[in-house]
Structures are given as structure tokens and as C-alpha cells.
């Protein structure tokens, strides 16, 4: 087990430069852009690229949270309705409390997502239930809550001006705000993962929880915090998405589950936890957004889009995401 799988992995400086999955992912992005450019010149225009980055920001924020959970060897399948929850609660609070509501909208949306994450974390850490099944159940519960919330009476579903501004505004040199927010979230994630004790503990728990526990790490706290961050990130993305489309609606988070997990895994993060860096996730997010965009530009019908999408993810994973033959 202890023999290193990649010889370069032993030299820290080289590990970054030669991370195979990172290189492949970034070259795929360039290949896709070049392929798109052959189809239409528009693919290389700054306006198109900025727009793609703006759209990928939403996925990027969700993937940041999903990555924290995947790094500890778990998975968060409650993302779809947590996104919707964040959007719906933010807009509803704005409707209920008028002026103060407008101020409270975004924090309340994010807080609700964090609470879902807290429950997920408690279930996984203390009840020791498989995260896959527990978060799926939470997803169903949150869906039920949202049906109840929007049924019977109709809470406000329009985004506030602040949400709209954060999602589509471009005050600084024409750079979309959403992109700037992703940069901030990404920088925080990188800082958390590489420069803090918490980040070290995340990798330790992902590699072998028993060993981390015996080394004195409060593994349950690490698990709970990762799920809280994932829930908060998903809800925050939901708030921004509501701002982007000017309203919150049922099932708005559904198209984000597979892309978020795929982006993290395509970026070279081990789905069993313990290995992966954020640069890879950035590459994965941009890759997926570009793939979706190109399929949309080519006016591929939904059926073909789903098939190509699944096949491309599988093909890329088969190219570099394979497990080791490990039977010793």
C-alpha cells in the first residue's frame, strides 16, 4: 500500500506541475475551445468567454462545497433541493419583511442551506449512516418542505435587487460579479484546504478516518463542518441563481447535482476522499460548462445532449480517474 503510485508525488514541487488529471483537464478545455472555434469564431471572443465564466461561477460555488464533502470520502446528494431551498427562502424572506427583509434575504438563504448541511453532518457523523443514503433522504425532506412552503399560499419568488446585482452586475471593468464571487469563494476554499489545520484534517479524515481519530482529530466535527460548508455553498449558489433568473422556482437545483460531482471528480479529486486539489475542480467546472454550452450552441436535442454528456464524463474518467489495481 505504501509504495507511491506516482513517482513524482514524492517531490512536492513537481506534484503540482505534473498532476496528470490537471494537465488532461486543462488540455481538454483548450481542445474544446479550438474545436468550437472551428465551428464558429464566436467561441474565442472575450464576450463569450466571460459569459461562460459567469455561468460556470454558479456551478463553481456548488462544486466548492461538494468538493469538501467528497474530500472526506462522503457525498452530498441533497444539493439539488438545497439550491432550491436557498433561492426560495431568500426571496420569501424579502417578501415577508419588506426593507429589513431585503437585507436579510441573502444571509437567511445561506443559513437555511447551512442548517440542512448541519443535519446531514449530524446524521453522517453521529448516526454513522452512509452519506449517500442519508443525504438522499434529506433531499426528499427538503423537497417536501418546499412543496409545503410554496403550496397553499404564495410567498414572494422575485429576487431582490441585491441578488440580481450580485448575479448579473458588471461594475468592475466589465467582469461579471458572479465570477468575482466565485474567485472569492475559491480563494477561501484554497486557503482553508492548504493553509489551515482544518484543511489538513479534511485530507486526513478522507484518507483514513480511524487513523485521524487515533491521532486526536475530532473527526465528527470535521465531517459536520464539511457538510455545513457544502449546504451553505449550495444555498448561496441558489440565491445567486435566483438573482440570475430573477425568480426562484421548483426544482431549479435539479440540473446541478451530476455536473457538480462530475466537475469535482473530473478535476482529479478521488471520489473515495483524501486526494484532490481545488485547481482541478476549477478545470472540471469550466470543462463541464463549456461542454454544455457547445452542445447547446450546436442545437443538439435534449436526448443527444444527455447521451454525449454521460459518455464524455465516462470517457474522461476512464482516461485518468481509474482506481488502482490494489489487492495486496
Amino acid at each position, binding site marked *: 500500500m505504501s509504495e507511491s503510485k506516482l513517482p513524482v508525488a514524492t517531490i512536492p514541487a513537481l506534484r503540482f506541475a505534473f498532476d496528470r488529471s490537471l494537465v488532461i483537464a486543462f488540455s481538454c478545455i483548450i481542445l474544446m475551445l479550438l474545436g468550437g472555434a472551428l465551428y464558429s469564431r464566436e467561441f474565442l471572443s472575450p464576450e463569450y468567454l466571460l459569459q461562460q465564466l459567469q455561468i460556470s461561477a454558479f456551478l463553481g460555488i456548488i462544486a466548492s462545497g461538494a468538493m469538501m464533502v467528497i474530500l472526506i470520502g462522503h*457525498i452530498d446528494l441533497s444539493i439539488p433541493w438545497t439550491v432550491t431551498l436557498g433561492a426560495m427562502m431568500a426571496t420569501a424572506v424579502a417578501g415577508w419583511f419588506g426593507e429589513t427583509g431585503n437585507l436579510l434575504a441573502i444571509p437567511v438563504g445561506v443559513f437555511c442551506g447551512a442548517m440542512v448541511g448541519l443535519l446531514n453532518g449530524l*446524521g453522517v457523523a*453521529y*448516526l*454513522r*449512516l*452512509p452519506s*449517500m*443514503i*442519508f443525504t*438522499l*433522504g*434529506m*433531499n*426528499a*425532506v*427538503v*423537497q*417536501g*418542505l418546499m*412543496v*409545503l412552503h410554496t*403550496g*397553499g399560499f404564495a410567498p414572494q419568488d422575485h429576487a431582490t435587487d441585491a441578488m440580481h446585482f450580485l448575479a448579473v452586475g458588471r461594475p468592475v471593468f466589465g467582469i461579471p460579479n458572479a465570477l468575482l464571487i466565485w474567485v472569492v469563494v475559491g480563494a477561501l476554499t484554497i486557503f482553508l484546504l492548504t493553509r489551515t489545520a482544518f484543511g489538513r484534517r479534511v485530507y486526513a479524515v478522507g484518507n*483514513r*478516518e*480511524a487513523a485521524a*481519530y*487515533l491521532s486526536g482529530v475530532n*473527526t465528527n466535527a470535521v465531517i459536520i463542518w464539511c457538510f455545513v460548508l457544502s449546504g451553505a455553498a449550495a444555498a448561496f449558489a441558489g440565491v445567486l441563481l435566483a438573482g440570475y433568473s430573477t425568480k426562484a422556482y421548483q426544482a431549479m437545483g*435539479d440540473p446541478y447535482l*451530476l455536473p457538480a*460531482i*462530475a466537475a469535482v*471528480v473530473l478535476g482529479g479529486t478521488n*471520489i*473515495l476522499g483524501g486526494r484532490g486539489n481545488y485547481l482541478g475542480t476549477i478545470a472540471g467546472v469550466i470543462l463541464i460548462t463549456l461542454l454544455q454550452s457547445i452542445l447547446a450552441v450546436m442545437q443538439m*436535442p*435534449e*436526448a*443527444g*445532449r*444527455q*447521451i*454525449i*454528456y*454521460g*459518455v464524455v*464524463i*465516462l470517457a474522461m*474518467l*476512464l482516461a485518468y*480517474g*481509474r*482506481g*488502482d*489495481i490494489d*489487492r495486496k
Partner: protein
Amino acid sequence: MNDLRHRIHHNGGLLAAIGLFIVMFIIYVSNHPVGLTAAVATTASNKAVLLALVAMAQTLPVLTRGLDLSVGMVFILANCLASVLVVGTIGEGFLGIAIVLGAGALAGFINGAIIVWGRLQPIITTLATGAVYYGIALYVRPGPGGDVQSDIADFATGQLFGVIPTALVVLLAIVLIVWLPYRNSVLGRAAYAVGSNEQAAYMSGVPVQRAKLLAYTLAGFLAAIGGLMLTFNTYSGEASAPIAGTYTLNSIAAVVIGGTSLFGGWGSAIGSIFGAFVLRTIEDLLFVFDLDPLWQPLFQGVVLLAAVSLGALRVLRIRNRLELFA
């Protein structure tokens, strides 16, 4: 005597699921305005058998310590294929059934092949292949519609001798023809061995790869039977992602309620059948007790979460904290 105690202990989850189902079904029937007639039983079993088949399908990968998040999509794919292929004369209908079942098995085999030879994780593999199967289903049937051979459909959703729901007989036949022989075959036992400890199984010469391949292939096959039965019930096909998602989620819950361990190596498809019956009866109870429809999704979600939380009882039995991390 010891043997009996051992057997009861070994099948505790299954017995609990059966008990729970019987209690709930009695409450359901006694509160039903009509009572237990052949028609009520047939309607109930027609619905329950769909989930039971998908839950059986989910059981097999779970036993090998895997998971198949594409069962719902294969179920929907079989539904769409059947609404195109199972038409015409009875003979053509049966040919169509064979093709649909073959397609389901092929979908399962592809899952297994990618997991075994491609060495990818089951979750991410089946999440991605699920997108592909859903795309194919959409391609086959872009909008809801289609038809199905009505003689076969009426027979499969009707009653035998005017009393016994045929769907239940089909389910029993599948248990007798598919599950029991599989359970007692070399590869079936190998699936259990792989689930409890893959490395030990490999070292003991258990055919690990073939066991996994067969488990995923059979899962696809069983999910396709479920899709066929759905077509016989609705007389049409629809590529609906929400339905697929619901069935995938409920199949996992049914597996857990039926006493199968999500950590592999322990449980049975028969438990999953009763787990599915329990879940379906809960839905029917909501109907009988006239719960506000707005509350139903929340109630179902909470019941689901509570059901899967039953697995937490394991924590109480643990003697050494380190066992928690296994």
C-alpha cells in the same frame, strides 16, 4: 433449536419488514371504504410490484458493496422501449418483451463492465450511465405516448382465476426462477463474499469480477422487468426524469427497510420486496386517511429518512469505537 435461533437472528431484518408490512396492510384494508376485494388487492399489488422489482434490482449491487444509481433510468428506458416494441400480435409482443429485457440486461452489463474493467466507482459510473440511458429513453420517446400489446398487458395486470393478482404471481415466479437459483449459485455466493470483504474473497479464489458483472447485469434485467410491468399498467411510455429519480431513491430505501446492509455482504432480495411493499402501503395509507396533498411529499420524505435512519441501530451494538470507521 439453536439452528432456529440462528435462522431468526440471520433474517431479523426480513422478518421485521414482513411484520411491519402486515400491520400496515391490515390498517390499510380495515380503513379502506370497500375493504379487501380482489380489485383492491390487484390495484395495490400492481403498484407495489413495480417498486418491488426495482428494489430487487438494487439489492444485487448493494450486496457486493456497490450501488446502482441508474436502476430508475433503466426502468424508464425499458418503459419507453416497451411502448414502442411490445405491440402488434401476441407473438410480436413476446419478441418485443425479449428485446426489452435484453436491453435492460445489456445496460446493466455496461455498468458492470465499466465498474469491473474500467475500475471506476459504482456511484459516479451509474450516475453517468444513468444520464446516457435517460438520453436513449428520450430519443426513443421524446413525448409521452405509445401503446402496448393489450392482451399481454391485460393478462399481466389482471387476476388469475379471478382472485390472485397476476403481478404477484409474476413476482413470485421471478423470485423462484431468478433470485433463488442466483442466491445458491457460485456467483451468487461470491457476491456476498465480495460484499463482506473483497480482498479476502479475492485471496480465497472467489471469482470477484464475474460476481460483480453478474450482479450489475441482473440488476439491469430486473429493472427492465419492472419497466415492462409499468408499461402494462399505463399502456404508454414516458421518459420522465422525476419518476426515474423517485424509483432510484425508493429502491435504496426499500433495500434498507428490507434488512440489507448498505455496507454489503448481508441481506436478501426478498427483504427488499417487503421493504418496497412497506413503502407503497405508506403511500396508500396517506390516501386512505385523506392527508392534505400538500403535506404528502414532506411526510413521505420524513418516513424515508426515518426508515434509512434505522440503520443507525448498528451504532448501539458496537463495542469498540474503531469499528465505527470500518
